[in-house]
Each structure stands twice: as structure tokens, then as C-alpha cells.
């Protein structure tokens, strides 16, 4: 026991604080929190809840309130492991619930309740351990008091407190009432890393059985008595608006309850999904295209490429890049392009709103950012935040789409409910897949122009220009993310590259378009790593160097980069012979405080790329659940491979060309290669996992194809470029 932590409040103060902070009750877990609020006023026998993250009932039920949203990344299990390690109870003995909206559940890295940026594990690890340790110490103290012995004579083990040297023990449930009367300690000992018995061991996910059996409740599965279903016809042009709507045919459809105008379009409210869907089809709507009517991907591309040939705002300048480029014996340049990308979570968006008589609302959804949605909803309703209750569900995928800084799908559902208030019913606004793919909030399209100077086999100058929209501009995050006019998200992964290049300049052209854009798993890195790593490969070829060895040289003095690079190269057998027609590509990138390297083997068959093998190495520091690190790296590889091979959002005459999974093509079973994951044993700082495996896939794939065929892909997705 070595580390110390501080807890600020007595339990009673904490409970009062929680009640006052507007932490709200959820449908599925109203009773524990109601008990909590009432207990603060001394109205109910206390159940043991020493902090916002766990509760132990006298019935022995241990409940964990997960501050981070479960969207597939296994975080409910990870948070539980951290708490259970210190609480001395196995993960399969606890119940994990999604936390409601509340300041107690703010992301420790961002100070807002949000799940994103691959921060969940590292930012909450010590907090969760402390939460478990506080409970453990209070249970031990309660047992010691009950037995009239020193606390040193008691030890917590497997959900019980045991008296050392005897068979006497009390379960946590038996101790809960007494523990609740104790004072929350201000300092608690945390276990030494060497004493961990749960952290670092492969642990089954807490949500698997219910999800496999179809029992788990996602947002779209949520219901309330008398609930109606709404679908919104949204303007297909970005920045356009409604011209006219004839809803007479739609209103004649049996089961249609109401058709209302909302800021985003026209909402059809009906008894069920299918009726709402058909009625929406029956609307006769004319739209005014507005500024977005001119959107055209081919013209945008020309515009971006032209911009990339001019100097942009300087995000980083080392040495004198112009002079070094002019003086270099060899100069190479290339342009890399990536399109808009949709997140396309398998569960389309939905949000159910029940307006309350007091002017508030109960909102049930699947959100990554209740910290934005909660105040936004309260502001729209003009009520204090404690009048708006949120219940979060399992998220059927997120990838950034459900962390919307404008709370788009939550506020729209609220608008629908308000416009249809006379129906006096809970209304669930649901999105069809077409709505999801055409509804914006895409990863921005980018063009990169990179120029390098090479002398004597070494890169002496590097200039990377990025052209694209800003994600942060005009959002509440602008002051944090945009510095000196540069959106850090546009140049992350480029402006912070640690490679030993003496003259290095990164420039940015920020383009303004009416298309709504958002963070998409790995955000700016998904573009910059493709450009940076692809171009390093081109530099290696131009310099006659092995791409792995060139990277080793450039990354000297950066051990975490080198460790993953070396591990991936070793496990993949870098340099060993391959079958005819198969090539290898390599990449290494840091993002979200994590380090990942990839070696990919690929070939081209009948004009189509075929990926044979992906080898990943990751260093994310201390690992909580290695099985889920492996899952996340596999997941990241497949997600990135979809964007590398087939998926894109494009515009023609202002309209999105894609509509569903036939033309927004993501990787299917037969295209998915073997994916090996190797985890570096690391004592370094904990870092991200979920997004870290995304950035390196595209370039390693394209470098493998180049090695196999000599053809260099500089524009994603690969699509039919090899045909």
C-alpha cells in the first residue's frame, strides 16, 4: 500500500451535494438514487454509498455507476475492474449501470460529462480505485467496530471483511448499514501495482450475456406507456431550408397522429415506426437549397488542392524549411486526399422525450456527452437543470457521432416533443439509416500537400500543408482547441510529430463550408497519419532506404514509438519472404497518449485490394483488461480499413450521393483479415486505446499495396483505383 488519495467530503455532505447538483433519477435505476437522495435527508435507512460511483445494499447487491458510456469499448467492465480491485470483490459479483447526468460524472480530463478522446480509462483510473478503496476502508472500519478490534486485525477479501487468524467474517451487505454511518476518509491507501489481482487480467465483459441474448436496452429499444414514434424529414441540402410541405396524403395514413414543423424540417408523429416511415415518404416537400446547393466533391477537391499549393497558417516551424527544400539534393512532393466520412454506428440515433407538467422533461437516449445535452435541453426548456432528467442507454456504437457539441439529435427530439405537446405522449424520434448517412456531422474532407528534401539518404526538410474544415470552430470547445487561428484537431498528428527532421513546417488552410463536421474515431489523426506515414514511405523509396529502418532512425530518442515499431516489425517478420504478389507496409503513430504500430500484408486480386494480415503493437501504459485492448485494436483496424477500402461521403449538386450500406461500403466478414494484437509491457503513463489503432491502418495498407504492385494510392478510399 503506497499511494495516497484525498476525498473531500463526508458522506452526508456528499449526498446533499449530489441532491443539490441535479443528479437525476433514471427509469431503470430510479430506486437506488432516490434512496440516496432520501437518505441524505434521513428519511430512509441508509444504504452504503460513499461516493457517486458505487452503492452497497444491505441485501449485498453491489452496484457500480459507470461515469463513461458503454458504446462497445468495454469501459463498463474496465471501470468496474478498477473499483473492484480496491474494493476486493470480483467483477462478476457487481452490477454496472450507466450513470445519469450529473457533475459527479464529469470526464476528469475534460471537466464535462463526455466519453471520448480515448480518455476514459486513464483519466478515471485513480478516481475509480479511490472510490473502491474508500468503500473498502469504511467496511473494514465498520467490521472492526462491530468486533471491537483494531482495524489492522481485519482484512477485506472476496466481498467480505475477515478477522485475521479466525474464520469470522461479515459480508459487505451485512456491513453496509454500519459502514454508511462512518465518516468518509480523506486519505485512503491504494494497492501497489504488484498486488493487483484483477487489473491486468483478461476479464469477461459485464455486458456480454445480455447483449448476445438481445436483452440489453439500447436507446432505440427504450419504451414508455403510450409512446409515439417520430421521424423527421430533414433538408437534404446543408444550410438549406423548407420551402413548402403538403402533408395531406401523409395525414390520411391510419396511425399518423400529427405532422409538425421543427427547426430541422418536418416531423411525422405516428403510432409506430413503420407508420411514421410511410407517412414521411408521403410528404410532398420542396426545399430551398441555399448555400449547400452548390456542394460538389469534385469541385471541392479542386479547390482544396489549389489551396494546398499556397502557404497556409503556420502551426509549427522548426528551422528554415524553404531554404532547406531549395538546397536539398532531392526534393519530392505528393498530395494525399481523404473524403468526408460518416460514423455509421450500427444502431441509428434515437431519443425519447417525455415532457413533464412542471416544464421539465425526461429524456432517454444513447449519448456520449450528457455534459452538453443536459444544459442544452434545460436551456431550450427554460428550466433549471434539475427539471431535466436523463437516462442513458447502451450505445449501439458511437465513434464520436453521439458526442455532439450542438446536442443535435437530443435537441431535435425535444423540438418534436414541444411541437407535438398537445399529444401528451412520450415521443421517440428515430433516425433511419438513410438519415444517419445523409445527416451530416461527418469527419471533414481533407487534402494534404507534403514536400520533403532529402540529402544523402536523410530527410532534411518536411513541409506538410493541411486543407480542411475546422471541427471546433463555432462550438463551445473553440477556446480550448483553436489557438492563434489554428484548430488543433486539423493538424494533430502532423504538428506534433517527433521525428528528427531539422527543418519542419506544418501549415493549415481552414475551409468554411455549410457541411456539419464532427470528431470521427481518431479525429484529425485519421487524416494526418495517412499523409505523414504514406509520405515517409515515399521518402524511404526516394532515399533508397528500408521504411522500417528509416523510421527507427527518425524516431531515435522516442522509446515508446520505437518499442511498438520494433514489436510490430518483429511479430510480423519484417523483411522475411512473402508469397508472390503480396507486399508489406508499416506505420507507427502516437495519438491520444497511446502508441501504435502496424504491419499489413496485402495484394491486389482482380483489381481489388486484398488484405491478408494485420499485425498491431500497442503501448497504452498499464493495461486494465488486456482482452479488451485486443478487441479495441481489432475494432480500430476494421473501422479504419472500411475507410481505407470503400466508405466515403461525397456530394453531387448539393446532395449526398450515398444512402445506405450498399453505397457506403464498410468491411464485411469476407474482407476481414487475421488481426494480431501485441501489447507492450509498459510502466509508462497510461494512455488511450480505442482510437489509437485507427490512424496507422490506411497508410500501412497503401504502402503494402505499393510494395506488392508499385502503385501508390494517395486518395482514400481505394475503391476501384486498382482496377
Amino acid at each position, binding site marked *: 500500500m503506497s499511494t495516497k488519495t484525498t476525498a473531500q467530503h463526508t458522506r452526508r455532505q456528499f449526498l446533499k451535494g449530489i441532491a443539490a447538483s441535479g443528479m437525476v433519477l433514471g427509469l431503470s435505476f430510479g430506486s437506488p438514487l432516490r434512496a440516496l437522495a432520501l437518505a441524505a435527508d434521513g428519511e430512509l435507512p441508509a444504504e452504503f454509498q460513499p461516493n457517486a460511483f458505487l452503492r452497497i445494499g444491505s441485501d449485498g447487491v453491489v452496484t457500480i455507476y459507470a461515469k463513461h458510456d458503454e458504446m462497445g469499448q468495454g469501459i463498463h467492465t474496465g471501470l468496474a475492474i478498477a473499483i473492484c480491485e480496491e474494493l476486493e470483490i470480483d467483477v462478476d459479483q457487481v452490477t454496472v449501470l450507466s450513470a445519469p447526468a450529473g457533475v459527479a460524472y464529469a470526464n476528469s480530463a475534460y471537466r464535462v460529462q463526455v466519453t471520448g478522446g480515448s480518455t476514459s480509462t486513464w483519466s478515471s483510473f485513480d478516481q475509480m480505485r479511490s472510490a473502491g478503496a474508500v468503500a473498502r476502508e469504511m467496511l473494514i472500519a465498520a467490521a472492526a467496530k462491530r468486533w471491537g478490534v483494531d482495524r489492522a486485525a481485519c482484512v477485506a477479501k472476496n466481498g467480505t471483511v475477515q478477522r485475521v487468524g479466525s474464520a469470522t467474517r461479515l459480508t459487505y451487505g451485512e456491513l453496509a448499514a454500519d459502514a454508511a454511518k462512518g465518516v468518509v476518509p480523506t486519505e485512503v491507501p491504494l494497492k501497489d501495482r504488484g498486488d493487483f489481482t484483477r487489473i491486468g487480467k483478461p476479464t469477461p465483459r459485464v455486458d456480454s450475456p445480455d447483449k448476445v441474448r438481445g436483452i440489453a436496452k439500447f436507446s432505440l429499444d427504450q419504451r414508455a406507456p403510450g409512446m409515439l414514434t417520430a421521424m423527421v424529414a430533414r433538408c437534404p441540402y446543408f444550410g438549406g431550408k423548407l420551402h413548402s410541405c403538403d402533408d395531406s396524403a401523409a395525414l390520411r395514413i391510419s396511425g399518423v397522429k400529427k405532422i409538425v414543423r421543427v427547426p430541422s424540417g418536418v416531423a411525422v408523429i405516428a403510432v409506430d415506426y413503420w407508420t411514421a416511415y410511410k407517412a414521411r415518404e408521403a410528404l410532398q416537400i420542396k426545399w430551398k437549397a441555399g448555400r449547400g446547393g452548390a456542394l460538389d466533391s469534385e469541385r471541392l477537391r479542386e479547390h482544396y488542392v489549389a489551396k494546398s499549393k499556397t502557404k497556409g497558417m503556420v502551426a509549427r516551424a522548426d528551422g528554415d524549411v524553404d531554404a532547406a527544400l531549395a538546397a536539398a539534393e532531392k526534393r519530392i512532393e505528393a498530395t494525399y486526399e481523404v473524403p468526408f466520412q460518416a460514423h455509421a454506428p450500427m444502431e441509428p440515433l434515437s431519443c425519447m422525450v417525455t415532457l413533464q407538467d412542471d416544464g421539465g422533461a425526461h429524456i432517454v437516449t444513447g449519448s456520449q456527452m450528457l455534459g452538453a445535452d443536459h444544459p442544452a435541453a434545460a436551456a431550450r426548456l427554460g428550466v433549471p437543470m434539475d427539471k431535466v432528467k436523463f437516462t442513458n442507454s447502451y450505445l449501439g456504437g458511437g465513434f464520436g457521432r453521439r458526442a455532439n457539441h450542438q446536442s443535435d439529435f437530443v435537441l431535435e427530439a425535444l423540438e418534436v416533443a414541444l411541437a407535438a405537446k398537445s399529444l401528451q405522449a412520450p415521443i421517440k424520434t428515430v433516425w433511419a439509416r438513410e438519415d444517419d448517412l445523409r445527416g451530416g456531422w461527418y469527419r471533414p474532407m481533407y487534402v494534404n500537400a507534403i514536400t520533403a528534401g532529402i540529402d544523402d539518404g536523410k530527410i532534411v526538410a518536411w513541409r506538410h500543408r493541411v486543407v480542411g474544415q475546422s471541427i471546433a470552430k463555432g462550438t463551445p470547445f473553440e477556446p480550448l482547441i483553436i489557438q492563434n487561428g489554428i484548430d488543433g484537431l486539423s493538424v494533430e498528428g502532423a504538428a506534433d510529430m517527433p521525428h528528427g527532421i531539422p527543418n519542419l513546417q506544418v501549415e493549415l488552410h481552414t475551409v468554411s463550408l455549410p457541411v456539419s463536421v464532427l470528431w470521427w474515431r481518431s479525429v484529425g489523426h485519421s487524416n494526418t497519419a495517412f499523409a505523414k506515414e504514406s509520405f515517409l514511405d515515399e521518402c524511404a523509396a526516394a532515399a533508397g532506404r528500408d521504411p522500417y529502418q528509416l523510421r527507427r532512425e527518425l524516431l531515435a530518442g522516442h522509446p515508446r514509438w520505437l518499442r511498438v515499431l520494433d514489436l510490430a516489425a518483429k511479430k510480423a517478420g519484417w523483411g522475411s519472404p512473402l508469397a508472390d504478389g503480396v507486399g508489406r507496409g508499416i506505420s507507427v503513430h502516437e495519438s491520444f497518449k497511446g502508441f501504435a504500430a502496424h504491419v499489413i500484408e496485402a495484394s491486389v486480386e482482380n483489381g481489388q485490394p486484398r488484405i491478408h494480415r494485420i499485425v498491431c503493437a500497442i503501448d497504452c501504459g498499464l493495461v486494465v483488461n488486456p482482452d479488451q485492448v485486443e478487441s479495441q485494436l*481489432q475494432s480500430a483496424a*476494421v473501422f479504419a480499413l472500411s475507410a481505407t477500402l470503400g466508405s466515403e461521403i461525397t456530394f453531387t449538386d448539393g446532395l449526398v450521393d450515398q444512402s445506405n450500406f450498399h453505397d457506403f461500403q464498410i468491411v464485411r466478414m469476407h474482407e476481414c483479415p487475421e488481426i494480431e494484437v501485441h501489447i507492450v509491457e509498459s510502466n509508462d503513463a497510461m494512455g488511450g486505446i480505442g482510437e489509437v489503432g485507427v490512424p496507422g491502418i490506411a497508410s500501412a495498407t497503401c504502402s503494402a499495396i505499393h510494395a506488392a504492385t508499385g502503385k501508390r494510392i494517395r486518395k482514400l478510399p481505394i475503391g476501384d483505383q486498382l482496377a
Partner: protein
Amino acid sequence: MNYQFTVNGQSRDVDVHPDTPLLWVLRDHLELDGTKYGCGRALCGACTVHVEGEAVRACSYPVHLADGKAVQTIEGLESNAVGRAVVDAWIDEEVVQCGWCQPGQCMSAAALLKEVQDPDDEAIDAAMSGNLCRCGTYPRIRKAIKTAAKSLRGGTGR
């Protein structure tokens, strides 16, 4: 229109428009939410159910076609040995991430294992390529299908 069919062995009676997809009958009328919506056009497989033992995409299967037939959904999958083996293997192999597509994946896998006792990679590709997973659980799905097949062959299923 009135339609009668069985769902997981129970007789069900619904009064809906004939073009209503079976998916929305299951979800909105019978509150069997284990069958998921993902695309509405038989492109993603999230809504896969069995009708008379065959895997169909419920989002594009009008309810009138189910009239008089036996429908099985994820909620009833564990009523037979193959279904139990699939569910067990999915849990044992830690396939799940977000989980939205997994009931459909299990229904497709069970349909495959009823036809092919020992599916190889090619058979798995052919049977499972209609089921999308945005989380990329494919490597573990492949493994789980082989695990389920093995347990069925060895008679170790529940």
C-alpha cells in the same frame, strides 16, 4: 389485416398493414426488441430472424409472408442445442463490443450451423458476409462459430 404466426413457439395474432416488415411487428407490436434495426434494406443483417428455420432479414420481410409460419428470434434461440452453443460461444469468446448487431450475427451463425456441422472459413464468409459489424468483431465471430461447431460435434453444448 390480421395475421397469425408463432414466435418462439407461442401463437401470436397481429392486426397490421400487410406491407409492415416483420421487424417492426416484432419490435413495435410484440415488444421483442432483441431483433435490431440497422438499415431497413436487407443490407446489414442486424434484423436476422428464422422463418421456418431459415434465416431472413426481418426488415425486408413483409408480415404477410410470415402468416401461418413459425418465426424464431434471438429471444428464442436458446430453445435448441445449436442456439445454445452459439450463445455460449459468443459469450465465451468475448465477441461483443457495442452489441447492436450481435443478435443478428447469432441468428445467421445458428442458421449456418444447422446446415454445416464443421464450417470452414469459406463457409463462414459465405454465411456471414450479409451481417455487418461496425465495431469489427469479425475475427471473434469467426472464432466463436468454430467454437460452437466444435462444442456441438463433441456434444459439449448445454
